[in-house]
């Protein structure tokens, strides 16, 4: 859960880009740090904002600080340094029950001794809503999740998916402007999870509520979010729209964490503007797009997505290599080839399932300079 103090250039870069309008700064983390023992940090120098109505996902491996960040926003944890504002007001001194933030938990956290209706009515009754208003809102919320006829049941009598929908209704029924979700679909099976992703997405666009969502599942993050903040080692490695993260990863961590990537090691020959040339370890040269590269002689990692590699008879591409097919994995909608370059590097190549290839065959592979990104080795 904790890492030693470190700063990276990416974090400094995010700190600089502070939006101007109030609506864009609906939630703001300013230099937030969290340490549990005073020596190691669960979250380091976090600067982040969430716009009103936005669906922001905090994505990262376990221990990267995303849940701690969410808990600080909910008020369950206090930052050891820095400040969090909600709607322009600092909330550091507000206890969770005064923040008016809805929250959905991974294990649902439904109250087992109350019926579904009582669960959903809880936030209204503690706010002293009138009886008629409460009934009306509870029915509306249960209609929204299509569980009106299950109102008298106990949570234990519902399936996992139904329980999660009740938890959603309970977090939304008091119309909070911000809803936090902590891996809410983690306990569901794949099919149900995908269905619930759509349902949450629909609720988001229907209600216009701001959602901060925590997950370690990158496909879930890409499917649902307006923007994704990729967490690593207690800080944000990169924040941006799903397609920008996928197509323009800012560092090797994001490149390998989001989607799949082939990683090639090498040393920079020369950099000129948006192009560079890299000598690969084991032989061969490729042209790539430099990201934060210092210049000649720097050790670097080149990231290349499997679907960006084409099989070509002649070298029409920026980069062309001969390779031997070592394996083929049939996956229905596509075929995955394991191809060994002459320098010993193994590449994964994603091709159409009709491609006729046999193990041991020699093929030529090619890819564009724009599709491979060279990062300095960290």
């Amino acid at each position, binding site marked *: 859960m904790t890492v030693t103090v470190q700063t990276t250039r990416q974090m400094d870069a995010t700190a600089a880009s502070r939006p101007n309008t109030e609506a864009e700064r609906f939630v703001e983390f300013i230099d937030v740090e969290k340490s549990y023992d005073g020596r190691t940090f669960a979250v380091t120098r976090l600067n982040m904002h969430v716009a009103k109505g936005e669906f922001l996902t905090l994505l990262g491996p376990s221990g990267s600080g995303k849940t701690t960040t969410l808990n600080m926003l909910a008020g369950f944890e206090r930052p050891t340094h820095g400040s969090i504002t909600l709607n322009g007001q600092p909330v550091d001194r507000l206890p969770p029950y005064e923040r008016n933030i809805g929250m959905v938990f991974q294990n649902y956290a439904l109250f087992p*001794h109350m019926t579904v209706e009582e669960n959903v009515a809880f936030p209204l009754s503690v706010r002293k809503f009138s009886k008629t208003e409460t009934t009306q809102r509870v029915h509306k919320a249960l209609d929204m999740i299509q569980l009106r006829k299950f109102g008298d049941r106990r949570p234990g009598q519902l399936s996992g998916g139904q329980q999660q929908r009740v938890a959603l209704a309970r977090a939304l029924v008091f119309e909070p402007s911000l809803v936090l979700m902590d891996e809410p679909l983690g306990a569901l099976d794949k099919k149900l999870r995908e269905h619930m992703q759509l349902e949450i997405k629909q609720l988001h666009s229907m209600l216009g509520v701001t959602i901060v969502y925590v997950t370690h599942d990158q496909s879930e993050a890409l499917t649902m979010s307006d923007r994704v903040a990729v967490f690593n080692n207690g800080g944000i490695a990169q924040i941006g729209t799903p397609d920008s993260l996928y197509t323009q990863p800012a560092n090797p961590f994001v490149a390998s964490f989001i989607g799949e990537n082939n990683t090639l090691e090498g040393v920079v020959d020369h950099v000129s503007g948006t192009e560079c040339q890299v000598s690969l370890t084991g032989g061969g040269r490729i042209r790539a797009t430099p990201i934060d590269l210092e210049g000649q002689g720097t050790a670097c990692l080149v990231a290349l997505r499997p679907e960006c590699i084409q099989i070509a008879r002649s070298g029409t591409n920026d980069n062309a290599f001969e390779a031997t097919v070592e394996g083929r994995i049939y996956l229905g909608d596509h075929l995955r080839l394991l191809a060994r370059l002459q320098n010993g590097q193994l590449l994964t190549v994603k091709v159409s399932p009709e491609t006729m290839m046999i193990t041991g065959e020699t093929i030529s592979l090619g890819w564009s300079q724009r599709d491979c990104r060279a990062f300095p080795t960290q």
Partner: protein
Amino acid sequence: MRTAPDTADAKSIAAAIRRSQTRERLRSFGLATPLLVLLLLSFGIPIAILLSRAIYDPTIANALPRTSVAMQSWSGNGIPDDETFNALAADLKANQQQGNISEFAKSLNARLPGARSQILKTARALDKEGVSDPASVVKSVPFWTSPATWSTIENGRHALTSFYLLSAVDLRWTADGSLERVPPEQAIFLRVFARTFLVAATVTLATLILGFPLAYLISSVPKTVGAILIIAVLLPFWTSILVRTAAWTVLLQKFGLVNDVLLWLGVTGTRLDLMYSRVGLIIAMTHIQLPFTLLPIYSVMRTIQPSQMRAAYSLGGRPLTSFLRVYLPQVVPGIMAGCLLTFILCLGYYITPALIGGAGDQLISNFIANYVNVELNWEMAAALSFILLVFTMALYAVFARVLGLDRLKPV
């Protein structure tokens, strides 16, 4: 789901399932048989025999067979005829010669205080050489011409008796066959029952007040700290109840540690009488019972996820509201189980009140023990035990009904 192809098949399948389930049940029952037999022999039957003595006392009927026959024609008013006196004289003489007279005397004495010496005196007189008119010897003792004596014998000559059970709740039959309260100076048992229930309720409440926060603490601290606390709670549990009670007598006595500390702190100016007092008794019983109340509560608390309270807070519940509406209702089954356990165990406390309680703090078990060990009146002991058992079971039934036994199961 696939259904059975036709009804005949379906029926035979259902029968086969039933057969296999029955076999399964018999097998598991068979495994439990040794235990059931042991329980029946060492527990069920002895208790049934003992309790039966509360309503079945053949001593008087056995001692006075001739008198019993003669009394069948008696109207029940005043004193019976001479024939009965002759029969009684013969019975008394026979008892005296067979050496059974003191058993009979004791039994009648339990119902009619003072009867013992009269019976022994009469029996000795009858056993002398050359008694020509035994009936008049008997009649010469005023005890035998009192209607109360004869109505007591009339009641006692039937082996089945309600005497002991009624005595256990301070009631008796009058000579004219109606129920009445025994005179206040003899009425002790209802007071003792009330005292027993009061002490049990006080101890239960005290263990709950002390145990609930401790259980909460243990369930919320990190596992290693919790394990140490649990051991601290359980440690006294591993010593015998007698040793713990003896330890409290050392601590509570007039020049004991507790008084020393209270005096030193200036809480009190004089040394308190903690030994042989209700306060001392309740302190010692609370200490002994604490784990019984605490452990069921703790085991329920441990199953409540921390996210429950977080969810309550995030939904706008203030700490007290969240505690009362989300946390407490989920702990209620544990509280009920723990309190019921402690309360029922307290009803049967014997050693601690005997050693620490004063004369006014003896509970019903002390009286039962006294009847068994000292007075040798097992009928009375059985009657008191029976009443205690009925009270306890009624209480349990009320608990189960009001709270619903299903709530004692984890959700």
